[in-house]
């Protein structure tokens, strides 16, 4: 049964969505409004507003992001990447599936129904295949916690740390 999602119109303490570790859907969408992303200079920066973790996508991952976030089916993305990079579709599919599983586990994207069959192959400029690299940054929480001016606890983020359990 699908979990209720916070609507774009009203945001109220949006719950952290825990994604599945396996990719069992053909189409995905950005987990908005919790997650925001912006393409710049051939890279994509993604921020999770709830966890405070941010990410950097480069190379083929950055090139695939617009297609993925537009809800284009994974097999169509894999075909487009394969054509643009001259790499076997099976290899791309394997890498792309792992990449999307990671994004899902990090609550960056969520599975969605495929709206309709794409009219043609998604456009992607010829490029060198670099695999689907993603860098994950969780340093900001520590930076903010040590800065008493920002009093992050009172900004509502990050959430209170869970007490450590004795070993």
């Amino acid at each position: 049964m699908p979990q209720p999602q916070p609507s774009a119109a009203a945001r109220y303490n949006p719950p952290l969505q825990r994604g599945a570790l396996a990719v069992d859907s053909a189409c995905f969408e950005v987990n908005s409004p919790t997650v925001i992303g912006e393409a710049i200079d051939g890279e994509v920066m993604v921020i999770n507003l709830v966890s405070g973790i941010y990410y950097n996508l480069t190379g083929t991952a950055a090139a695939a992001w617009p297609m993925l976030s537009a809800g284009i089916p994974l097999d169509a993305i894999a075909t487009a990447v394969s054509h643009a990079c001259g790499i076997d579709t099976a290899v791309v599919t394997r890498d792309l599936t792992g990449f999307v599983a990671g994004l899902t586990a990090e609550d960056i994207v969520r599975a969605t129904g495929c709206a309709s069959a794409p009219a043609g192959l998604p456009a992607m400029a010829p490029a060198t295949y670099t695999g689907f690299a993603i860098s994950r940054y969780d340093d900001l929480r520590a930076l903010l916690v040590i800065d008493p001016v920002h009093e992050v606890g009172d900004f509502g983020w990050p959430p209170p740390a869970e007490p450590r359990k004795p070993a």
Partner: protein
Amino acid sequence: MITSEQARDTLRDLVAALERAADSRPSIVRRYRIAGAPVALHVGAGGAAQEMLHAIAPLECPDDNSPPLLSLYIWDGQRDGVTLPESPVLRRDDAPEAGLGGYAGDSLRAFYQPNAGVLSLLDTGCRRGHWWLRDVATTPYYERAAPFKHILQWWIADRGGALLHSAAVGIDGAGILIAGPSGSGKSSTALACVDAGFAFASDDYVLIDATHPPHAHLAYATAKVVRSSLDRHQHHRRHFRNLGRDDEKPMLFVQDVAPGRVGSPLALKAVVLPFVAHRTTTRLVRIHPAEMLRALAPSSVLLFPLAGDAAFRRMADVCRELPCFRAELADDPVDVATALRGLLANTQAVSARAAE
């Protein structure tokens, strides 16, 4: 579990109650120009809440009868006798993860800081807001350093701008945005430039408008430094307001240090990411826009999560439109200011050649 509808209804009722209380409260109206726009602040005539406004004093202006583009009511709950209602929406003292953190629905924005006793409300539709403080006397100093920053962020985002976690300084109306996380050297760099005669637009939070490339506007005239760096700021010692409080960052208002050089808009020419490198001379290294966005956006976005997507896009615009540099800082503040003065001169010259 509180639903967004419950939160909305509670907040709408609260806004209505505050509007009624505002009608009967003896108050004064103070006028400001914030990011070039007329703003009216309604403060209780009792005076306590006015103490919270030193950080925006350089922006105060005479009433020229311009209709305000933001009307903000400032409350001292203790002296105004206005308390928040008992509501599960606002009750977070015992369970920080429950109750209202932030709310954004329709035109209403709200953020509650229960420990500080601060509630920020803005209706972007009618551009009226309320900044409620439980008790001015016990409100944390960081609110005095940067009053109603959440409201300012929602308001400027609605106007196509953003409130950035950055510093900005400049010369002759041209400015440099200084980005980076806390502890990266923003404040020290900004104060070094002020000491060298630069104009000041921010050491921590700066408003940028919707122009391309943007102008930087003063949000707060506050400068805060880490206590361990106080020796470098001995010449300003008498201006620090809170040296007796070990739990606070030493804070001064720059209009006390550099009167006449605070508050003018700056046409941004470059973005600089400071890096404390302990060099003999400061070195400027051109970096990619994506690297700058990684330095600029996360802290700005995460400090104001309800500003979200629009503010993030605006930050990306800034990094695309302006040349970005890493400043590997020398220990000598005079050298740092000299390097940034040179950068401004060079970017001005490039702009002039491009315009010919």
